């Protein structure tokens, strides 16, 4: 096995606030990897650096053999992404959004047509293919974004909270599709979610990030064993504390975090 994503001492500061503080991890080729953490932990910021949208403050990234900061175009050729935030063009129809993506990613016309139909049927939007996206509900937009993310088959696919706001049917449907793709084409899957049972069920490897630092990693079984808990959800709560995340963490929070970093959650 060789890593397809390798991150070393990655740091991202916004002004004097550190969103990501010296994280290092690797994702193997063909792996399904979950990146978990409370709100504001630094998950999306890390994904943005991996996907060339943000420049790291320091540290190195290698994705499919290239550095996103130095060689963004090469890196962009090897991944696909479903963003956490909306990313559709509301003024275009559902099919136009799909088609646009297909052209941008160089999917040949014939394959594009068949795959668009297949995927739009898959997320049950084929009947609404010619509606403008601005007429869609939140869940419908999300489904369209997921279908769009699957239109081309990259080496790595990033999914930032893909299942947020989706009904359980679509969620299950989506995961089985992704697992199939992962098995058949060896596509590496990198995702974040706040549904712990989803992560436990799907991911082969998990990393937990909190306040910009990775505090634990391993398989779901590793994590429950490490923390002596019964489920990934309990392990997650034990590792990250049960306080709700505010913009600024309280003094005790920072102290707790400091201790944890010093005592070294497993890297």
């Amino acid at each position, binding site marked *: 096995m060789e890593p397809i994503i390798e991150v070393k001492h990655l740091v991202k500061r916004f002004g004097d606030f550190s969103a990501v503080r010296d994280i290092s991890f690797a994702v193997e080729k063909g792996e399904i990897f979950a990146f978990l953490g409370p709100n504001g932990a630094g998950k999306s910021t890390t994904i943005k650096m991996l996907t060339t949208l943000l420049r790291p403050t320091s540290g190195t990234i290698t994705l499919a053999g290239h550095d996103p900061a130095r060689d963004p*175009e090469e890196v*962009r050729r090897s991944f696909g*992404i479903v963003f956490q935030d*909306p990313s559709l*063009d509301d003024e275009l129809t559902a099919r136009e959004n799909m*088609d646009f993506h297909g052209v*941008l990613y160089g999917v040949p016309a014939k394959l594009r047509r068949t795959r668009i139909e297949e995927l739009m049927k898959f997320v049950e939007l084929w009947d609404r293919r010619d509606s403008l996206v601005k007429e869609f509900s939140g869940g419908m937009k999300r489904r369209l974004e997921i279908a769009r993310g699957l239109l081309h088959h990259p080496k790595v696919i990033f999914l930032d909270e893909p299942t947020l706001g989706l009904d359980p049917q679509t969620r299950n449907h989506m995961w089985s599709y992704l697992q199939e793709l992962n098995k058949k084409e060896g596509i590496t899957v990198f995702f974040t979610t706040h549904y712990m049972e989803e992560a436990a069920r799907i991911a082969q490897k998990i990393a937990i990030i909190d306040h910009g630092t990775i505090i634990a990693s391993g398989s779901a079984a590793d994590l429950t064993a490490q923390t002596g808990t019964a489920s990934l959800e309990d392990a997650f709560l034990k590792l990250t504390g049960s306080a709700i995340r505010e913009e600024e963490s309280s003094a005790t929070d920072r102290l707790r975090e400091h201790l944890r970093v010093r005592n070294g959650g497993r890297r």
Partner: protein
Amino acid sequence: MHTIYIMWLRELKRYFRSKSRIIGSLGQPLLFMLALGYGLGSVFRAAGDGSYFQFLVPGIVGMSIIFTAIFSGIQIIWDRQFGFLKETLVAPVSRLTIMTGRTLGGATVASIQGIIVLAISMAFGFRPTDWWLAPLALVFMLLVALLFTALGTGIASVLEDMQGFQLIMNFLVMPLFFLSGALFPLSGLPPILAGLTLIDPLSYGIDSFRAILVGSSHFGLGVDFLVLALVTSAFLAIGSYLFSKIQI
């Protein structure tokens, strides 16, 4: 190539789908054309400069082009806010290609807007001196449109949100328009004003429209073309550089 086409097509689709934008952006040029054209006509004639309406129309065509073009360029801010920009920024195509497609699309839209205004002005009695030069007018309209779309793109690439939009309208677009000689002849101006009109690229655009449509020019069509081509290339280069540096 395909990417440029699809980016271009997107701009056109968005334009033709928002009827309110087309009609809304015709209102202002029409108002200027009719109120000023008829209102100042007698003063202008008395000064011995001929028909003000004939003089004004190329200026108003330039006005609608610069407004539409900068607005198209600035759309990037909207795309950023509604999130679609990310989709194009992570695509495996160079940002130069994306920027080129967008800019061509915005410039096409702006030129169409200019043509509509020109057509309307004919309904009110405007007559070009030489119909054979019409295709040449199109070339210059597209050039001016490209220049200002690229400018809009460059500006929008460094702005985070729409807060700065009003600022741009008031401190960039309006001065560019009023100092361009769209409304008054460039000869015999006080030195400071004359200097300002000289550094306003729109002056050369509108001068070229006048040269082609009504056969009167201040700088000469050759100078107009040179200046416009140079400034357009510079803005395209700066615009694509800034666009390539966008972070989200």
